[in-house]
């Protein structure tokens, strides 16, 4: 559905990473973790298209959602200039969202870079179901890890990983994931990040015969399932629309190239 949100907060929380809080009660009521909104930054011909952005916070009681966004181009750059009280045209909630039904209690969350965005509301949902959560959060460097305080408040056990070793373990998220699954096991693994990371994470999860879900991304035209811009190959030979069939897929479904 289309809803006009009011900006309540728009702040820089990391290297090129911003967090926006919006009052939009209808979307906040309907949304579930893993879904996204398609943001019309401004009513202008350029940028023309909406920007698909993951829900980073869902506060149904107060009618508030938050978005964690990486500044990558003109549209997201324009978003950084929005101020409290500004209106923003939203389409959503879109996509399928994560499943929180799995046998057992131990969830492992693997986030790469801005791929951490959808996991905060997922953690809240998992907590309500009395699941135990461990999170492996990797990024290029310390400044690219955002909102660590939020996860600390939730009391989530965190393993930080950076490519340059500026904080936490040096390397990629798959190393601690392999170790964690080997030593302690897990009941379900969630991952979101670049495609190469998702492919590697699925490889590790498969090695331990575990199940999980990935949240994928693609360049989108519409977010509504009509333009087929985000249609990607799956292992069964058929395509899946990232916007509508996803963005969340069971591990083992998508065919990463």
């Amino acid at each position, binding site marked *: 559905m289309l809803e006009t949100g009011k900006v309540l907060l728009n702040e820089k929380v990391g290297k090129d990473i911003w967090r926006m809080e919006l009052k939009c009660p209808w979307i906040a009521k309907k949304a579930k973790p893993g879904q996204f909104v398609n943001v*019309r930054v401004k009513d202008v011909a350029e*940028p*023309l298209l909406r920007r698909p952005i993951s829900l980073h916070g869902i506060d149904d009681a107060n009618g508030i959602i938050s978005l964690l966004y990486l500044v990558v181009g003109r549209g997201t750059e324009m978003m950084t200039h929005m101020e409290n009280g500004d209106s923003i045209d939203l389409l959503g909630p879109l996509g399928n969202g994560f499943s929180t039904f799995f046998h057992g209690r131990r969830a492992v969350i693997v986030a790469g870079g801005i791929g951490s965005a959808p996991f905060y509301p997922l953690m809240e949902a998992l907590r309500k179901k009395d699941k135990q959560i461990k999170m492996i959060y990797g990024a290029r460097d310390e400044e690219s890890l955002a909102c660590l305080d939020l996860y600390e408040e939730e009391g989530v056990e965190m393993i930080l990983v950076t490519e340059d070793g500026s904080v936490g373990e040096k390397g990629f998220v798959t190393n601690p994931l392999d170790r964690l699954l080997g030593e302690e096991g897990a009941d379900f693994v969630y991952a979101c990040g670049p495609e190469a990371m998702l492919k590697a994470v699925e490889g590790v999860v498969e090695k331990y015969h575990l199940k999980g879900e990935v949240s994928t991304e*693609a*360049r989108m035209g*519409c977010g509504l*399932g*009509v333009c087929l811009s985000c*249609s990607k190959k799956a292992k069964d030979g058929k*395509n899946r629309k990232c916007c509508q069939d996803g963005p969340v897929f069971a591990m083992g479904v998508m065919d990463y190239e």
Partner: protein
Amino acid sequence: MSKVNLGVNVGGLQMPNPVTTASGTFGSGLEMTEYVDLSRLGAITVKGTTLEPRPGNLQPRCAETPAGMLNSIGLENPGVEVFVKETLPKVAEYGSPIVVNIAGKDIEDYGKVAAILEKEDAVHALEVNVSCPNVKNGGMALGTNPDLVKETAEVVKANTTKPVIMKLSPNVTDIVEVANAAKAGGADGLTLINCLLGMAVDIRTKKPILGNVVGGLSGPAIKPVALRMVYQVHKAVDLPIIGLGGITCWQDAVEFLLAGATAVSIGTANFIDPTVTMKVIDGIEQYLIDNGYNDVHDIIGLAAK
């Protein structure tokens, strides 16, 4: 009841109002029911259909450009048999005329798809895509050659009794020549225009953005080109035109009607505002009332007089 007559006829396709949807920007319509009352559309023009299923092109398939976008979807679709069996009956329930956009890898294919759809009462007209810029065979390769456009129209006409509307490519030097060829082949109407061939480069990776390198440019950026072609063809060729290219509001739609289009089609704008078709229908009606007209025909081609 409408206060003014909005109904138009495009070569035998009777539309209750002059607004339809550009093929490939509206799915089958079923995806849009949360935003649009499908029964209010002048016609639903569905995603391009081919004889065999097509997986479409490599990722990335779209890129944003100034006041527009590039796409290279590559006619991804489940094939005409699946469309007829699974999708068509559901779309037909909404009661709006259904226009099926057809494409093929060669001219023979177009005839076969037309023959399959000929049996379906729910299909009101065929829009023949001889203009897709994103497939190697068929598509634009046909649409830029007047002889092949004529031949394609003839083959489709030989396989159907339904109105045949040829969707032409703007990637030609003389659009009137191609339009005349379509007419000579027996076309009942024309759709103008499909996407302009374009490209975008990523300066970070130093490579083309689209997986298919080139793609079709759509959106407000192409509106002046589209209007010019509608105007030229309206002046020179006696066939009704469905005009499209960058229409994002009712004012744009009125421009196309004034330039000579009998109906208009909304494409890329559906992605930005999925309710836009409804607003355009209302806006055209209000424009007619405000300007003292009681029939949409009163304004068609006024700017070409």
